[in-house]
């Protein structure tokens, strides 16, 4: 059974801190785990007893790319059902299509504007964790 955990896979410490800040601002109670590369994320997810409720996955990661992580998660029965939101800077069409093909639940681009970022994160959280938040003004 899922624990009250949200996994953030993010190699950039700046982004990690900003996303964590945005997540906390949403007021979620879940524990936020952070892994800095793909290998670590896969190991964590396959190894952890209770899977997280949501995974925010960056694509450009050291050691193992986000898409590989996604593929690995979807191939394992234990992690198959975890909602994964790809949260990345890339707006490459191939990235988008491949992500959805591999079973990403959402593909969301990280905006440069932090205020937009907090809006987007609120939206993700409210959707996947059933937190009642208003949708962002701009997608």
């Amino acid at each position, binding site marked *: 059974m899922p624990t009250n955990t949200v996994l953030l896979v993010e190699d950039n410490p700046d982004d990690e801190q900003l996303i964590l800040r945005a997540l906390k601002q949403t007021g979620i109670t879940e524990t936020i785990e952070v892994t800095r590369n793909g290998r670590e994320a896969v190991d964590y997810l396959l190894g952890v007893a209770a899977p997280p409720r949501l995974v925010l996955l960056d694509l450009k990661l050291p050691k193992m790319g986000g898409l590989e992580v996604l593929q690995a998660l979807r191939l394992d029965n234990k992690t198959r059902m975890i909602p994964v939101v790809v949260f990345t*800077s890339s707006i490459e069409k191939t990235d988008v299509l491949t992500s959805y093909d591999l079973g990403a639940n959402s593909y969301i681009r990280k905006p*440069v504007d932090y205020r937009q970022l907090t809006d987007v994160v609120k939206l993700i959280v409210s959707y996947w964790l059933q937190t009642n938040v208003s949708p962002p003004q701009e997608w």
Partner: protein
Amino acid sequence: MQDQVTPRALDRRKRGLHIPDEGVWVGLGVLAFLAWLSVTQAHVLFHSFAEVIGATVAFLVSAIGWHTYPLTRNVFFLALGSGFFWVGVLTLLHALCFPGAGIVETDVPYLDIRLWLALRFFEAVVLVTAIRCSGRSHVPPYMHVGFAVLFLGLLALISQPWFPEVFDPETGLTSFKVTSEYLIIAVFMLALASMGRLQGRVDGVVTRRLSLAIGFMILSEFPFTLYRTVADMQSVLGHVVNLVSYWFLLTAAVHTTLKQPLRVLSADAHIYEAFPDATVVVDREGKVRQANGAARREATVDNCLGESCHALFHPLALAEQDCPVCQHIRNVQQVRMLELEDIDTGRWYHISLLAIGDAGMIHVRRDVSELKRAECALRESELRYRALMTHATDAILVVGEGQKFVDANHEAEQLFGYSRSELLHLGPADIHPCDKADALAHAFNHLRLHGSVLRELRFPLRDGSVKVKELAGARVELPTNVLFVGIFRDVTARRAAEDALRENEALLRQAEEIARMGSWDRNLVTGELRWSEGMYRILGDSAAKPSMQHLLEAIPECERNEVEAFITRAMDTGQEFRIDHRLHDAHGRERSIRMLGCAQCDEFGRPLRVFGTLMDITEAQRIAQELKLYREDLERLVTDRTAKLLQAVHELESFSYTVSHDLNAPLRAINGFSCALLDDCGEHLPAEGREYLERMISATNRMGQLIDGLLMLSRVIRRDLQLQTCDLSAVAREVFAQLRAGSGDRCVHFTVEAGITAEADPSLVRLLLENLIGNAWKFTRERDCAAIEFTSHQDGGATVYLMRDNGIGFEMQYAETLFRPFHRLHGWDEYEGMGIGLATVQRIVSQHGGRIWAESRPGDGAVFYFTLSPRLVG
């Protein structure tokens, strides 16, 4: 009537002495008897006999001359007959007055001698006169009277008492008597001398006998100048000689008037027999009484005498009572040339009837079938000739020996512009219808000299055109004269066709030379093979003899069989063929040849002839080979460059990715931490510090948009077009709806023409319209009521799309710079935007092969025009 002529008699006849053997002996016997009578018995009796014989002969000659004249029309004999009557009278008177006869006693002394002189003189004058008159066609009317007057005059003269004495019993004959006798001899001599006049008028035999008679008369005169008594020997000799002369006179008369006519009659009978027409004598009953040889031959029975003339000589289709000829025979009516056709035999006859008194009629039947046939043939021939002349499409002229036209047909009238009657008064030298004035006359001269002519003449017509006529002339020998026939055939079309053909051939020759082609044409019926000049050129042998063998031998052995098989198949099946092969020309050079062939077939699909063309493609092949090499080079080059380009694009992609990913992250950090700083420590910062932070946040946001714009631009550049029909009107409405949803409080009238479509990439078209409409939306912000309009129109076959707004517009001098990336016309504080929208629009339009331009005036709105004509490939 056959005249049996013995060889001896014939011989005599040749010599002109035709004296019947018996007659001579009888005459000599009579003379001997008389001589004996005179010497032994009584002189008076002798004298009487002699004179009576003389008178008899005279009367006989008179009767013959007088009565044969109507048949012979011989003036000589008539004159002789007329005179000799009186001679006979005088002779009788002389005999009656002879002394001792005792019949007539007169006072006139020696009246018998006087009568004798008158008689002899009269006789001589008659002979001279008759001979002199022989040349006349008619007897002078005064002649008979003249003879009678002379007779009476002489009688009166000798009865006169003053007439000189003629005899003296003492001395015998007086000198007057002797002189008179000599005078008479002279007159006889004159007659004899004139005998030549009779030549050609009287039979030669008769002339000779008359000459002999006159000669003997002269001879008899001499004894009469010598005698002393009337009974002495001289007198007897004179009378005997005189009798001889009378004998010759008699035979001459008999020959002329009896033997000659009978001989003529006999010849007539022969003529009748030899007459080629069937000639018969028919009696009134229509029975044949006499028939000539022709009639006997034509009659169908052995002996036609007594047979019905109708049955033998008239058309049997006619009954005898209806036969016109028989009717004429019954009525004894003469007929000349009654024409009858025997329908059964198809023969034509001319029948003539000549009445010959009670004996019936002479019936002459002439077979004129051949004549009739010849006449018909002649008439038909004439009609054929006329028809030919009339219906001939060629102009025909006939020239006679006199250098004048003797006939011309209608076409000739048309050609020469003269009527036939006018032409018949003209000759070839009189008309000048040809381009060269005397061409016609020269042509006919040539015809006259050489017997034939064949030449072309050119006739300029009134309308300016020229007719070309071929004159074929021939000399026609007729039995009586020579004609020259000229036939003018119109060869204008043929000449034009020949010229065109010649021109075409020249063109073909030229074309073949230019195209390096040759052609052959094989007639499969005659086996004839023709080569065009190009064939010799390709084979390099101008003296080659056209033959398939020669052509095949020029082909290398390895390809020869294949080519031969193609040609053979075309000949057998009429199939077209095309084959490339090599060929060694006469100089040993190898040529590449393309042979194309086809067969021309008859209605049953059997090939009649096979045509083939040979094209020298050596040069073309060399060029093609070079081209191929160039192409291969080029392709290699393109492949290399493309690979390099792809690599570059790939590098650009990864660069863009890196840019978008890695540039965003620090920006996001600056922005995010600025926000955090503002949120968390904002109250510790002065207002100035907070403003700086806001500016940092704003700057990083713009930077982010800038990066996004760059990315968008790069994506548009390297995107492959996926063209399909797009409904631009619908897309425009959707884009507008989104914008309106974004800021619902603005008053914007958006007008879209319905049904604007384009062959374009749908996602790029959406991007294009988003930018253009977004642009219009942005720059009409100041308007109380904005108006945006999207329409299209056709211009020069291409569709031009218009996006019109009533926004702030721009100066036209910036119209070109609008579409440069990151180029902005307005300050950051006035209108947001990276200056990348119109650059993107321009890229999209270019991608589609179209073009974009704008028109505007500041404050007066702007119009953006664009086309999306797909780029023409290749």
